[in-house]
């Protein structure tokens, strides 16, 4: 009898402990499937494995994450949300508005997230004053990538003003090079456009037009000038740009076929993979006219609301791991972005990474840190895409600058 009883209790204990172990698991939906990104994510996976938390990987290929968001929608509609999801900007707000996300306030309080994360970033990590996501990184999007050898050959100094920038591109074009490597996809056109808006009107105009969606700013003279600058850039792009992927445009700069590319800091990965070093074979500087400001997008892990306590515990463990300085360094060195925390030692980053972190901290202080419209951090997807339509139509010559500015007003009005 006692034998049996012991056996039973033993079995029960085993059963309990296995179920506890089983519950310690996170299912993570993400679209970091390319080599460097997957390696960066592995850092997090191993970190969690160290604390005994399992990792169910749910990768959905597709760079911008729109496929992943479609999968997520299906999962949530079916009542089977993953525990954590990689998300960008307004998607987090949209899901929080649906009431789907978990509350991380207690953890944020304990680890002092309010102090270390820049306010412009918190706007996306929190909803209604509550923390719902853990930011991983800050990609700044107003960078110019330049081929050093070509700059020296053509006698070009790092341009300080918009006029210098145009002159430099003219020199390159006259010498038979492609002045600006660019891929004609809507989001790439919009990435460049962000910098033009910021360059023409500075932070106030960017806030009024891209974030507050003020019709007067959207259709005004400054907007027309921003479009004029886009048209100027169009003149420096080769004829075969339409539909080209951004990394092929980066390759043109790497190979010395093209002088500049305006692109977010993920482009750095292409240069580094090609065996080049920041500050030596390639240069990075802010798009002339946007110095002192940073337009960004930020990858975050949003936590979905779960009932099971074990799942909740592993979510908190994952959020803690994501926010730990060690992970932020390890991940962002690989990914090419800057850490989401401003209190991190920059010594392990390369020249461009250190510049990015310094700019980020400065822009955060001075109020020059803005979410990028092109990357869904300035307005909701419906308006963002409506703007894309206008920008890309203008870039492809369907509208002149004045019409494009008018169309911006209509597009925003229609999609609000």
């Amino acid at each position, binding site marked *: 009898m006692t034998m049996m009883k012991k056996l039973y209790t033993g079995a029960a204990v085993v059963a309990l402990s296995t179920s506890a172990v089983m519950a310690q698991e996170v299912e993570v939906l993400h679209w970091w499937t390319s080599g460097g990104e997957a390696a960066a994510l592995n850092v997090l996976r191993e970190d969690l494995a160290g604390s005994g938390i399992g990792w169910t990987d749910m990768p959905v290929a597709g760079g911008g994450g*729109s496929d992943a968001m479609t999968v997520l929608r299906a999962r949530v509609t079916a009542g089977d949300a993953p525990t954590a999801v990689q998300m960008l900007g307004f998607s987090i707000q949209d899901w929080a508005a649906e009431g789907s996300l978990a509350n991380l306030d207690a953890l944020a309080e304990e680890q002092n997230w309010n102090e270390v994360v820049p306010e412009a970033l918190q706007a996306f990590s929190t909803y209604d004053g509550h923390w719902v996501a853990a930011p991983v990184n800050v990609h700044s999007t107003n960078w110019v990538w330049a081929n050093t050898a070509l700059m020296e050959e053509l006698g070009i100094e790092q341009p300080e003003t918009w006029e210098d920038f145009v002159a430099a591109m003219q020199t390159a074009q006259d010498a038979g090079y492609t002045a600006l490597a660019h891929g*004609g996809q*809507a989001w790439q056109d919009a990435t460049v456009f962000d910098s033009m808006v910021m360059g023409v009107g500075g932070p106030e105009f960017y806030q009024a037009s891209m974030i507050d969606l003020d019709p007067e700013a959207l259709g005004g003279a400054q907007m027309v000038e921003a479009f004029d600058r886009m048209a100027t850039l169009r003149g420096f792009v080769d004829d*075969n740009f339409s539909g080209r992927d951004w990394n092929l445009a980066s390759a043109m700069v790497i190979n010395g076929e093209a002088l500049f590319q305006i692109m977010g800091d993920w482009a750095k990965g292409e240069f580094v993979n090609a065996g080049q070093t920041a500050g030596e074979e390639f240069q990075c500087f802010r798009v002339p006219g946007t110095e002192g400001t940073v337009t960004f997008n930020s990858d975050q892990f949003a936590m979905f609301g779960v009932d099971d306590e074990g799942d909740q515990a592993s979510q908190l463990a994952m959020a803690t791991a994501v926010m730990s300085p060690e992970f932020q360094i390890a991940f962002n060195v690989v990914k090419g972005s800057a850490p989401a925390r401003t209190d991190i030692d920059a010594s392990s980053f390369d020249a461009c990474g250190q510049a990015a972190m310094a700019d980020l901290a400065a822009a955060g202080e001075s109020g020059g840190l803005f979410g990028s419209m092109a990357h869904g951090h300035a307005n909701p*997807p419906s308006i963002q895409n409506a703007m894309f339509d206008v920008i*890309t*139509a203008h870039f492809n010559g369907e509208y002149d600058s004045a019409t494009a500015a008018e169309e911006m007003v*209509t597009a925003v009005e229609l999609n609000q």
Partner: protein
Amino acid sequence: MAATDPMLSGGADFRTRLQNWLPKIVLAPSFAVMVLFVYGFIAFTVYLSFTGSRMLPSFDLVGFQNYERLFRVRQWDTAIINLGIFAGLYIVISTIIGLFLAIFLDMKIRGEGLLRPIFLYPMALSFIVTGTAWKWILDPAIGLEVTVQRWGWESFQFDWIKDSDMAIYTIVIAAVWQSSGFVMAMFLAGLRGIDNEILKAAQMDGASNFQMYRRIILPQLRPAFLSAFVILSHLAIKSYDLVVAMTDGGPGTSTWLPALFMYEYTFTRNQMGIGAASAVIMLMTIAAIMVPYLYAELREKN
């Protein structure tokens, strides 16, 4: 019908009744599934088009607001105009090429058995494969243009796929390449079905080949024309994958078609209501073509 059956109303035994009901019982599940997943979801889409759905379906009715917005969105105009250009050219050119291929093959030429599958082969490829292949062929930097230039014709230019005014025509080229062989097969079947006696009689009366085709054969091919039109037009209206593979709607938004519009608005722009409204418009367009056709077909049977 069953109720008026004398066998049943006359108190037939269980076996006969079962025999009568068995086909219906067996078909019932698939019928139910079809009603739910085809007509049910059509009804759901129609309902959604009257709601304020954004990211997820919601059920607050907003009247015709989505339709009003839809017709003010410029990309919808682009999509409709493109559909007009694309569907018109695609249907006409595919039909003409298919018809001529069928007529030539019908001349009792040698090697017909070899030629027929060659012409039909493109239909075996998906639109994605066709689109990707044609994207490479038409790309000025790697395809036709640069090849011809390397052969020595330096001034040769063919960069339509990068030109927002001409890009839609490159989609027509690829689609026609894909479908002409299939249209040919339909016409060939029609041609083979024509009674030889009539042709012989016409020949005896001294009709030329051209007259025979014009007066006898083509009029008899009317059903084949009609089927070709119906099949090609619904392929054109639902066309999505070809555009995505070839241009992804670009340059700019110049090659958008309604199906691309619907997907974009519903699934990536969080404007589910407008997307649903565009789907309803597409459905109505297809219905406008199919209903008269079905009506004509069914009436002929009677």
